[in-house]
């Protein structure tokens, strides 16, 4: 409905109170701390140089404590990641949208955070397991590699220590190209003049493993033949015994290592329950880190620090009281924002309109001095969404599903708002479904207006409501202009256009239909007058008289923009009709199976359930996005500027855990 009025809070105090002040502010969670360090740029001295003037100002950074906490965070995080890798938590499809937090009781949480011994033991234990696992996995890969290399040699029936030749013979052991093995054997035969024995230990398409015993006189000849076939020597990772024995031994060893790996992994999985301890501690650490990060936005002298913050006006008393309890000497000043300040923006809406803030969040927040359009957006979004779905059954299902999810599933703020929005829109769709008479593609037996049965009337309704939507946007801008004291701009830029468009619509209706519109006979004159008015006023920023008229004339071309804006609302018919006809088709296809004996009714029901769920899913996505577009492009285009900075107070924000047994705090 509105944008909250914001106050500026200045806090000046002794450095000793700085931590207490920030801690208090974080607990309250209602103050955004602004970065004021840019104010001291240029007058900053060498840190720690106390010989400088006593008014020396520094950044109040906490880099040592920040670095320390970042280290702790990374240790806890890596422990968590290690456990999570071996014992992952499967996220359900729902949680992918809503996020997941670990539920804890308050006493559990306190125990986790205070028991540093248990934490350190756990972290050490995880690190030890991680080290063990790493070394075992290294061994495993070495063994597996050796095994893979030696397997093809397993049928070699000579112990490796005997592969060393004699006075007259040399033994060559190695791998050669296996594709032309016959050629190789022939060439060796030729080169050695019958003094070589070649044993093929194993052969595959690419490689042949050979043991060649050759007379020393022919060693070089044979070797060069072998080389030409890509021969390379094979060494063995052991000195004595048969390859087959080695393979057997390695296999046993590998089995043993793998069993150990499984054991370590089991031990890690046994730590699964300790993940919540780590999440809880990580949460606490990150909250602390947030506070140290905010410290970097403050400035200090040798003895005193200064903080500048923003808060909602109605929270100021609470803040002052809480700060006064820390130290009497704290100077807390609360001011209105001055000219040139850029206060953060908080939207204030009631239960019904608050969910629709997500539509704005995804686009842009209004500037601090703009009008909050959430209320108007809520109304039109729900209305247009209802027209796009236009089915009583679908609306009820959507509303019920959203309601159940809101009740049963813990969601992030964004998720909750989105489903509240879908709940309200679902109710609207159900109400509109009562008007169209649509019920899961069938008819309720009557229809006041329906996208499938009377598309022409529905298109007229879409365009008509579209015009209302656009007019609402222009009227908001008119009001905003007047509010800022720019009455002339409001009258010329919005008033004249409203007159021109209205009179053109009246003219159009009179020529195309037989509707009798009161005062309709003057429409032509009003249209002409407002057009002339626009030509005269729309160029008023130009100083040259000719340019002024030129700009004015050119501005009449905007009429095409309004035309295409209005046309854009025909999508409501398209969506409503598509959804309605598909629903009918689902029913028709399903009913074809009804009379089949035995399985017929089952097939019919299955088709109907899956079909309607799918159609509703597509319809909701399509409706959500198309209707959002109508807000962003057509509606916001008429008045909305945007670019407001979202309020992000320093608060103790739990990211990973939540407490189950305390009453929900407001905000």
């Amino acid at each position, binding site marked *: 409905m509105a944008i909250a009025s914001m106050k500026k809070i200045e806090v000046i105090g002794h450095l000793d109170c700085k931590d207490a002040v920030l801690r208090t502010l974080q607990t309250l969670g209602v103050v955004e701390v602004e970065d004021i360090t840019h104010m001291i740029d240029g007058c900053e001295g060498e840190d720690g140089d106390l010989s400088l003037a006593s008014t020396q100002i520094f950044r109040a950074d906490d880099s040592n404590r920040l670095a320390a906490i970042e280290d702790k965070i990374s240790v806890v995080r890596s422990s968590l990641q290690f456990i999570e890798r071996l014992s992952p938590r499967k996220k359900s499809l729902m949680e992918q949208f809503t996020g997941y937090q670990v539920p804890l009781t308050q006493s559990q949480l306190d125990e986790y955070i205070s028991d540093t011994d248990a934490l350190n033991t756990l972290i050490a234990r995880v690190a030890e397991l991680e080290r063990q696992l790493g070394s075992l996995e290294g061994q495993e890969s070495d063994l597996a590699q050796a095994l893979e290399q030696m397997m093809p040699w397993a049928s070699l029936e000579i112990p490796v220590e005997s592969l060393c030749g004699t006075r007259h013979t040399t033994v060559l052991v190695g791998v050669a190209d296996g594709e032309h093995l016959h050629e190789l054997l022939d060439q060796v035969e030729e080169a050695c003049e019958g003094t070589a024995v070649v044993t093929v230990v194993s052969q595959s398409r690419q490689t042949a493993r050979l043991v060649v015993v050759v007379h020393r006189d022919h060693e070089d000849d044979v070797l060069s033949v072998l080389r030409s076939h890509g021969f390379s020597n094979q060494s063995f990772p052991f000195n004595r015994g048969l390859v087959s024995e080695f393979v057997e031994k390695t296999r046993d060893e590998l089995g043993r290592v793998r069993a150990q790996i499984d054991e370590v992994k089991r031990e890690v999985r046994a730590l699964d329950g300790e993940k919540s301890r780590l999440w809880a501690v990580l949460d606490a650490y990150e909250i602390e880190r947030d506070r140290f990060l905010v410290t970097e936005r403050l400035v200090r002298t040798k003895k005193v620090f200064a903080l500048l913050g923003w808060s909602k006006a109605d929270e100021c008393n609470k803040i002052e009281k809480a700060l006064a309890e820390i130290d009497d000497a704290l100077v807390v000043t609360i001011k209105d924002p001055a000219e040139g300040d850029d206060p953060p923006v908080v939207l204030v809406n009631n239960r019904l309109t608050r969910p629709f803030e997500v539509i704005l969040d995804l686009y842009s927040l209004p500037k601090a001095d703009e009008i909050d359009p959430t209320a108007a957006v809520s109304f039109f979004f729900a209305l247009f969404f209802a027209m796009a779905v236009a089915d009583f059954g679908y609306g009820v299902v959507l509303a019920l599903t959203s309601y159940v999810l809101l009740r049963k599933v813990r969601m992030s703020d964004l998720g909750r708002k989105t489903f509240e929005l879908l709940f309200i829109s679902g109710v609207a769709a159900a109400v509109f479904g009562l008007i169209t008479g649509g019920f899961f593609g069938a008819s309720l037996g009557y229809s006041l207006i329906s996208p499938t049965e009377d*598309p022409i009337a529905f*298109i007229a309704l879409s365009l008509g409501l579209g015009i209302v939507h656009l007019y609402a946007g222009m009227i908001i801008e008119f009001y905003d202009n007047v509010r800022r004291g720019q009455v002339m701009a409001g009258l010329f830029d919005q008033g004249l256009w409203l007159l021109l468009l209205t009179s053109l619509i009246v003219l159009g209706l009179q020529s195309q239909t037989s509707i009798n519109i009161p005062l309709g006979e003057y429409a032509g004159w009003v249209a002409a007058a407002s057009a002339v008015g626009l030509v005269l006023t729309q160029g008023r920023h130009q100083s040259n008289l000719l340019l002024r008229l030129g700009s004015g004339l050119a501005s009449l071309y905007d009429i095409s923009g309004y035309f295409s804006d209005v046309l854009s609302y025909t999508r409501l018919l398209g969506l409503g009709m598509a959804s309605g006809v598909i629903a009918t088709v689902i029913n028709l296809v399903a009913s074809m199976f009804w009379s089949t004996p035995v399985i017929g009714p089952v097939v019919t029901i299955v088709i109907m359930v899956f079909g309607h769920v799918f159609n509703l899913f*597509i319809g909701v996505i399509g409706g959500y996005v198309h209707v959002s577009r109508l807000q962003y492009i057509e509606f916001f285009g008429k008045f909305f500027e945007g670019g407001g900075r979202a309020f992000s107070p320093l608060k103790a924000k739990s990211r990973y855990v939540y407490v189950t047994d305390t009453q929900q705090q407001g905000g």
Partner: protein
Amino acid sequence: MVTTGLLLALLGVAIAVIPAGIGSAIGVTIVGQAAAGVVTEDPSKFGKTLVLQVLPGTQGIYGFLIGFLIMQKLGLIGGVVPQVATETGLGFLLASLPIGVVGLFSAVLQGRVAAAGVSILAKRPDELVKGMIYAVMVEFYAILALLASFLAYNGVPM
């Protein structure tokens, strides 16, 4: 007796259903491939990629919708061979052109935009809706074509 009119009308059904269906199949493929890449990195984004992937699928539905409506108006669903005048058949054929042609191209192009939206999802998952809005910009023209086809179909007398 199968008349020329019936054949023309059936050709109209084919022209509505086939190109739009092909376009959607291609569009959904493009997004699916991009999505698979993102899910390789972060499986928990599967649900969100699905939302983007269905977007270029609607043209196929629109084409089928017009085709189905024509078949229904012809009385084909009932199983009796209907008698259709040549002009009527030609009317249905022409009515199905907008959604057939626009459906084909817009689905493929929308698929590309949605695939780009998937890369938004990869880097800034919270901005998913913006990627969806971009894709829906393309969809509007398919909706206009659907409306044109539907209104023309509505006007063809049986």
